[in-house]
């Protein structure tokens, strides 16, 4: 039995059924970033003032290459989800908001792709 009123059923509106995915993925990426960001800060402190060759050697260790790639990718995803909420909250004009949304998503995908590519390039010694 439907709990909707006849009018609301005719209008066909209601939950877009999309919010839950955003909410869950924001938490999953957040949980993943707890160990990843602590590892990242620790690594950056250890690498402070290092020569180029030292950084390359560090990045060529598989555990560092994989962790850094994960950190860049997951952080970009988490950032895209967060910036999406900020834009939804503060931009009321729907068209302008859509443009900003597409731009921010593309920038974040570019950020993740470029960052991971650079890590792999150094790690694989190209």
């Amino acid at each position: 039995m439907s709990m909707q009123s006849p009018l609301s059923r005719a209008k066909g509106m209601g939950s877009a059924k999309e919010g839950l995915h955003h909410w869950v993925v924001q938490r999953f990426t957040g949980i993943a970033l707890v160990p990843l960001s602590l590892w990242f800060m620790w690594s950056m402190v250890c690498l402070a003032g290092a020569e180029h060759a030292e950084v390359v050697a560090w990045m060529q260790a598989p555990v560092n290459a994989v962790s850094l790639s994960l950190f860049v990718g997951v952080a970009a995803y988490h950032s895209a989800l967060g910036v999406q909420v900020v834009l939804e909250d503060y931009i009321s004009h729907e068209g302008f908001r859509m443009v900003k949304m597409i731009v921010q998503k593309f920038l974040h995908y570019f950020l993740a792709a470029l960052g991971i590519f650079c890590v792999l390039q150094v790690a694989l010694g190209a």
Partner: protein
Amino acid sequence: MSQSQPSTNRPMSPHLQVYRWQITMTLSILHRATGVALTFGAFALVAWLVAVAAGPEAYAAAQACLHSPVGAVLAFGWSFSLYYHLCNGIRHLVWDAGSGYSMKGLYTGGYIVVAVSVALTAATWAVLLGGAA
């Protein structure tokens, strides 16, 4: 996703300036502000990775930027932002699990987040500046 608001002449609800300052609202605003700051920090990190991949000259230039006064201030801000957003994010996860909603819990959790993120930032920079000296 909110729909565009119909134009009406209904009175506006009271806005920010009528509220007494509370640490809880400051921490909430700071969570969003540090999140946005970290988005810019992620771009800086990828720029640094590009420099590492490009070779020793580009890396030296990136390090010079990082060690300039502006670079150092930004790095300090990003380190605090990361620690704060991390700690307060864990506070949010506790809320998501259904805990910590009492008034006492909200304030205690808030003060713990501030204390831990300040301590982590201080420890990080103590090591960084101690190592450089």
